[in-house]
């Protein structure tokens, strides 16, 4: 691994991630131990995101469908932005105590606002004529939400999920403050790991966030209905006749 020497501290950190070392206290740190921390980090973020999605997507769709309580749905994300994640975690630690469940609850609260707001906005942006048309075709209200509004709102909903997921992964870094060992452990409990371990953890957290963003962007593209993709990309849209008589020649 001497080839990484030119990277200085970054080279050391990358070596730390892949090979690990033994700390002064004799514990194995880095290497496979980082894999465990990463798994814990992903597990915590995943559970929090799953719960947040189960709550906020149906709530946002419903609020958007009945087109009421827009104040609640819109201001949710404004309030969410104003409350610092560190303050939220600290509040939970001080009032409810440390532990996986309490921390998950805090992260769920953190993740809800962007998904809720985006689901709401996504549904309200659906053309009312499309909804009327589906109603005229005899769809029930539930069917309208599920088969018309949800697919058309999907791109925005995924946008909200992306924002929340990246934010939750970032915040899971301070999880050791709430007694859960994630990739934040080398950052918060720096004495056991040293500067190299801390830099290594920062690299892994950053990679995890970028990877999540890329994966969710791919999922977003896959989930977007074909009609919307065509609309968003005018060059691929089937050319419509602009003047009478032209249609026959194309």
């Amino acid at each position, binding site marked *: 691994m001497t080839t990484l020497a030119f990277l200085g501290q970054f080279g050391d950190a990358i070596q730390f991630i892949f090979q690990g070392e033994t700390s002064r206290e004799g514990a194995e740190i880095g290497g496979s131990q980082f894999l465990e921390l990463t798994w814990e980090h992903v597990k915590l973020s995943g559970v929090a995101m799953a719960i947040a999605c189960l709550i906020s997507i149906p709530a946002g769709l419903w609020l958007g469908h009945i087109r009421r309580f827009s104040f609640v749905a819109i201001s949710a994300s404004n309030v969410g932005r104003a409350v610092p994640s560190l303050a939220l975690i600290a509040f939970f630690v001080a009032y409810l105590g440390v532990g996986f469940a309490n921390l998950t609850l805090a992260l769920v609260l953190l993740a809800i606002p962007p998904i809720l707001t985006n689901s709401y906005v996504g549904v309200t942006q659906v053309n009312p004529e499309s909804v009327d048309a589906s109603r005229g075709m005899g769809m029930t209200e539930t069917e309208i939400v599920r088969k018309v509004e949800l697919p058309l709102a999907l791109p925005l909903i995924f946008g909200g999920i992306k924002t929340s997921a990246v934010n939750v992964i*970032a915040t899971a870094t301070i999880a050791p403050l709430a007694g859960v060992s994630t990739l934040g452990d080398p*950052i918060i409990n720096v004495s056991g790991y040293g500067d190299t371990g801390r830099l290594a953890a920062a690299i892994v957290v950053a990679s995890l966030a970028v990877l999540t963003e890329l994966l969710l962007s791919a999922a977003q593209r896959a989930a977007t209905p074909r009609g919307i993709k065509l609309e968003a990309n005018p060059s691929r849209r089937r050319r419509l006749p602009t003047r009478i008589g032209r249609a026959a020649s194309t």
Partner: protein
Amino acid sequence: MLAPLAQVQLQDRSSGEASCIADNGFCPSWIADNLDRYVDPFVQHVFLTLASVAVGFAIAFALALIAHRRRWLIAPITQVTGIMYTLPSIAVFFLLLPLTGRGNLTAIVALVAYSLLIIFRNVTTGLDNVPSETKDAGRGMGLTERQLLWRVELPLALPEIMAGLRIATTTTVGLATLAFFAGAGGLGEQIFADINFKSNVVVAGGLAVVLAALLDGLILLAQWAITPWMRARTA
């Protein structure tokens, strides 16, 4: 460099009702007696936020103006600032430490990087939403492209630009609570110093929320002041 967080010492909680404090409770009398210890972190927090938003706005605004006439630049700028937006700032603080060292510089660079996408996207959207008829009218009146930009397009884009500024500011207030990891202090350092003490957490966290709301309101007020034509329309 070793163990810099050890510098964050547990606070001395002497003064106030002993039992409430021993229970880590919410003690109004302790808060009243100890408000002064939050002044310096609050001022530092304000400084970090304003400096980061000002620099971030200057850079993103310039990038948006450059990309306004060279449309092909929008996609690459969005991608690069998008990556900066995705990187967790707490990780960026430590990635920057070997390069910029501990202190305000590292914190501000990370916070600026985070705000670029928000502001750039909003300025670009605002400029794009100016109706082409309005621009044609301006050209018809003999405005040059530069005059058109500053007298027609930018004023009409102000609502979106200000909205971006508000989002960037409230987000930066929140992220600045983590700036103490980069050695830049702020309200987060107070929270971290005694995270089990309810009084401390409520006051330090509350101050951050109040600051976000206050700055948001100030920008809204500024927007109201510099867009008299919007008021004329609604009146």
